[in-house]
């Protein structure tokens, strides 16, 4: 009997001691905020297109950081962004649902534009300029190709054009050897496995 009491007391005492130490430590080493969301946001392409189902990149970043969303919803970011987020979050990579197409840029057919300003309000990055009753113009360098201006346009005068390939923007593709292609495949398999 006595030994049981000793045992209980000793174990309880030690547990209490550990508990108190940990309680104090929680206070001392408390971590503020969620720095992960900022890091996720930094990886996103900031097109603000909403294709992920969230109203912009920051909300999606918050959702991913809070484990509320999968890492594979960013369409314009494509595989590279998905892999980067998956690595940051330490989760398994997932296939990107829709692969983004070539980079696009919006273009307003000015002779058809009625100057309604609806697209200006829709643009998430202020890339369309123009006054009411005047032609609107897309600043091509600012356009993220998010398609959000297409919907509100009452006269369908906005086109999405493929960004032209310029000599200055050309960069070397992967070498054409078999091994080079295999290397890339292995990489993606490895990330996915």
């Amino acid at each position, binding site marked *: 009997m006595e030994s049981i009491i000793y045992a209980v007391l000793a174990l309880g005492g030690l547990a209490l001691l550990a508990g108190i130490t940990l309680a104090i430590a929680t206070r001392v080493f408390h971590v503020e905020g969620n720095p992960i969301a900022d890091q996720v946001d930094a990886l996103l392409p900031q097109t603000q297109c909403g294709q992920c189902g969230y109203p*912009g990149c920051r909300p999606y970043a918050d959702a991913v950081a809070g484990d509320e969303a999968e890492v594979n919803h960013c369409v314009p970011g494509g595989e590279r962004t998905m892999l980067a987020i998956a690595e940051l979050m330490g989760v398994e990579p997932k296939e990107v649902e829709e692969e983004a197409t070539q980079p696009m840029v919006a273009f307003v057919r000015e002779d058809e534009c009625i100057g309604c300003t609806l697209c200006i309000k829709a643009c998430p990055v202020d890339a369309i300029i123009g006054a009411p009753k005047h032609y609107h113009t897309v600043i091509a360098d600012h356009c993220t190709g998010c398609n959000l201006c297409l919907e509100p346009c009452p006269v369908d005068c906005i086109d999405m054009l493929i960004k032209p390939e310029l000599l200055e923007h050309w960069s070397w593709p992967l070498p054409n050897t078999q091994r080079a292609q295999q290397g890339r495949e292995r990489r993606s398999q490895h990330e996915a496995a």
Partner: protein
Amino acid sequence: MKLLDVWHKLRGASGFDGGVVLDMHKQTAASPIVDCPLPSVLIHPLKQHIGASCKSLVHVGDTVLRGQKIGKSQGYISAPVHAGTSGRVVRIEEHTVPHPSGLGMPCIFIEADGEDRAVAVGPKLHHWSMEEPAVLRERVRLAGITGLGGAGFPTYVKLLKDQRSPIHTVIINGIECEPWLTHDHRMLCEQSDTMVQGLMLLLHMVGAKRGVIAIEDNKPDAIAAMQEAIEAWYAASEHQKALKLSVQALPTRYPQGSEKQLIQAITGHEVPAGKLPMHIGVLCQNVGSTYAIYQAVTHGHALTERVITVSGDALPKPANMRVRLGTPMRFVFAQCGLEVFDDIQIIHGGPMMGERLKNAEAPVVKATTGLLAMQRDVLLAEHQVEEPCIRCGHCSDVCPVRLVPNLMADFSRQGDFEKAEEYQLFDCIECGCCSNVCPSHIPLVHYFRYGKGQLAQIRKEKSFAEASRQRSEQRAGRMEQEKSEKAARRSRVRAQAKPAVTEDKDA
């Protein structure tokens, strides 16, 4: 690390690290420079240098003179483009240029009138030693001179006199370490007096006291010619003994002619990463550039012609030629007896750093050092099956920048570009030594170019995303503000018992 540096110094007889000894194929070493005839149409791309593109100053139908500025430089690092001959502008449109992508860029087409009337960019300055260096430098800028060694960096930028790091040594780069090419060799032999004059001019422009003409020891005739010219100059001008001119013969080893490696070989100092040679007080000029600078200053000639080597194992009559810029390559090859290009690969530049071109339609530009017509089946890529890396380390042995090429290539292949950058991918000078010695035939340089391109792309996307974010946040803030203003106004409206109708309209 210090100990290693000592070791490098001890070993330093050959000057720089790594490097390879190549088959030189200098068939045209003894062929005098000949003039290439003027073609009927000259094609001038609007960007022939590193830096910002030029803006066309002429319109279709305009008549121009040789040396007339037709492309205006935009930005600090840029060089204007001049008409190659007198004639009429017939077209301004996209045309293929010597670029590995095979893409085109806007070019000005000039139909020659055959008279070849010229206009100078300024008065002749035969007594340049009386002139201010800044005046001479401006002349170089106006003449549109870029480095004629292949990279095409605008020359006047290098001639800047910087108080913080005064230039003490001017090196004339007569190394010509690329196989096949011999145009610098011929220039040194045929224009040795002009070279000495040009070196004097450069010394004057940057205020340096030491001038070195660096030549690889496989060109003994050039070394002898330059030595003779310098001795003659010393004998002629008693009063300028303060200047030290010399010819330095260096062992034949590729890439001796790479600017950074040459500077290391001659001065023993390394150009710090991300800096230019001027930061360690050295100016390095190519033989062709020196000649062009001298011509621009003394005669007011714009850069409208250059000397190139036309060679290759598929070319019947290889030659060193003085070619008008803008001459279509097909025309140049025709002068050397090559009309049909079946199974022949054209290389723009030397075989180590030159680019393969898809066809012979592109014009000769400022950066053209040579044109090679090679039998396809002798080229590396034609029988290159990339095998697994056996980590033999030859690539890092021969790397003049002391990189670890196979690991960098591996990271690039796997898409791990950040890691490749950590291994100093951007310090690679793409000399091609590593690919040349690789027993597994791995196209290492290609991987580096791919990696560099992707990294640049990622960076561009990052900065675009950052800008988009800022705009998006501004917009969100603005909308928030508008919303709260609206709400405030509405509550104000509600608080006032019977508001005026007009006020409501405002809201």
